[in-house]
């Protein structure tokens, strides 16, 4: 078990180091997400009434579609120079490769959220310190990253991978997106914990389902 964790971390560290050197994923996702925030904030305005109605949706449009841009690169980098074959030749379970790549995808998305969310809160005149929103973001990003990493591996072998990934990804993560938006509405409205509990439970349930299912089917996705 320890060896598996070491190898997951090795793959994760390799992705971090590569991204630190190129900044390919972070910069493109960040620019896209910030553009979405700014454009929507001008389009809908930032008044208190509009904020309650539109702000949660705007945040999740930015994070979801920005995330898709990052996820398309998750396995594209392994496809170049046949690196995926190099990984597949390593004496590890395919699930180890999945979890290593998943850890990288989740961290990139979280890094973008850490920058984008405070800007979003400032743009819409909302309090900056919202720990419950952080929880919602973490749970939603686990769901996104778990499904996105799997479909990124699937889409990378198709010719139109940039189109294929959103087509596969979005319908599957709808329950998480809807739950994240609804939970964000309750957080921004200052409603009590009890009001968002159902949405949190839905997100946790789907995260578990996605993680288990993706771990089991990843082997079939990357082979052949």
């Amino acid at each position, binding site marked *: 078990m320890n060896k598996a964790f070491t190898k997951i971390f090795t793959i994760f560290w390799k992705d971090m180091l590569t991204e630190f050197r190129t900044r390919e994923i972070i910069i493109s996702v960040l620019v896209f997400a910030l553009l979405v925030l700014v454009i929507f904030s001008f389009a809908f305005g930032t008044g208190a009434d509009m904020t309650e109605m539109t702000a949660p949706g705007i945040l999740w449009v930015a994070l979801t579609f920005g995330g898709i841009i990052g996820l398309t690169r998750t396995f594209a980098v392994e496809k170049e120079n046949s690196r995926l*074959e190099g990984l*597949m*030749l390593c004496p590890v379970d395919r699930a180890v490769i999945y979890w290593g790549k998943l850890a990288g995808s989740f961290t990139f998305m979280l890094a973008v959220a850490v920058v984008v969310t405070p800007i979003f809160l400032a743009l819409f005149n909302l309090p900056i310190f919202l720990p419950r929103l952080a929880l919602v973001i973490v749970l939603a990003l686990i769901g996104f990253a778990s499904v996105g990493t799997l479909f990124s591996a699937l889409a990378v072998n198709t010719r139109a991978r940039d189109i294929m990934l959103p087509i596969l990804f979005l319908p599957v993560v709808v329950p998480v997106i809807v739950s994240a938006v609804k939970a964000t509405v309750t957080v921004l409205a200052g409603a009590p914990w009890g009001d968002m509990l159902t949405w949190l439970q839905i997100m946790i349930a789907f995260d578990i389902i996605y993680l288990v299912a993706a771990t089991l089917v990843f082997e079939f996705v990357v082979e052949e």
Partner: protein
Amino acid sequence: MDKDIPTSSTWAVEARGIEKTFGEMRALRGIDLTVSRGECLVIFGPNGAGKTTLLKILSTLIKPSAGSVRLDDIDIRDKPAQIRRRISLVGNQTFLYDNLTVFENLKFYGKMYDVADLEKRIREVVSWVQLESRLHDRAGTLSRGLQQRASFARAVLHDPSILFLDEPDVGLDPHASAMVSEILESINSGSRTVVMTTHNLEQGLELGDSIIILDRGRVIYEASRQELSGADFRQIYNQYTETGR
């Protein structure tokens, strides 16, 4: 490929009835081959003959549609992770990450293979491919020939007993190709089993203990080095690959 030896444990590589289909296309049509431990088998064949597909199956990257493969007497379907620890593959793609240095690339693969005393081992393999001076350069900044040498270092890092080489000198200039040839000569000097595909008849004949010619997914010719001595292999190759069409 000595077919007289009866026990399967003699073989480092033993493939029986390998078939592979991609949709309607039959890439391999019942390949049987055996390679003794420490032997070098060279596979020749025109483009599209199925050489790469065969190597991918032997190296566990893809599953055959039919047939079985045993490496070091272990069925690759039973213990794939155990098998992968004993094998390595060098193709014309290097599997290296351009934005990591040669050292970081080797460290990454070394950790994935649980190589003991990794830094010492990296120094050994880098010295073997004469890449010490470029160890801390990013792989993407190296020439194609140097990248291929780094790829050989990656491949032998975990000291595999079976090495698969898929046209390792494709795309190299004559100087780089000569350096790769030197590496190839030394790679098979020990007890390591090598299975190599190539279009380079001279190089293949020099390295191979036995050779096969593959065409349209079938083995159409096989011979040992002794059987070929004095024969004009280019003529044989042209004759057989023409016949196969």
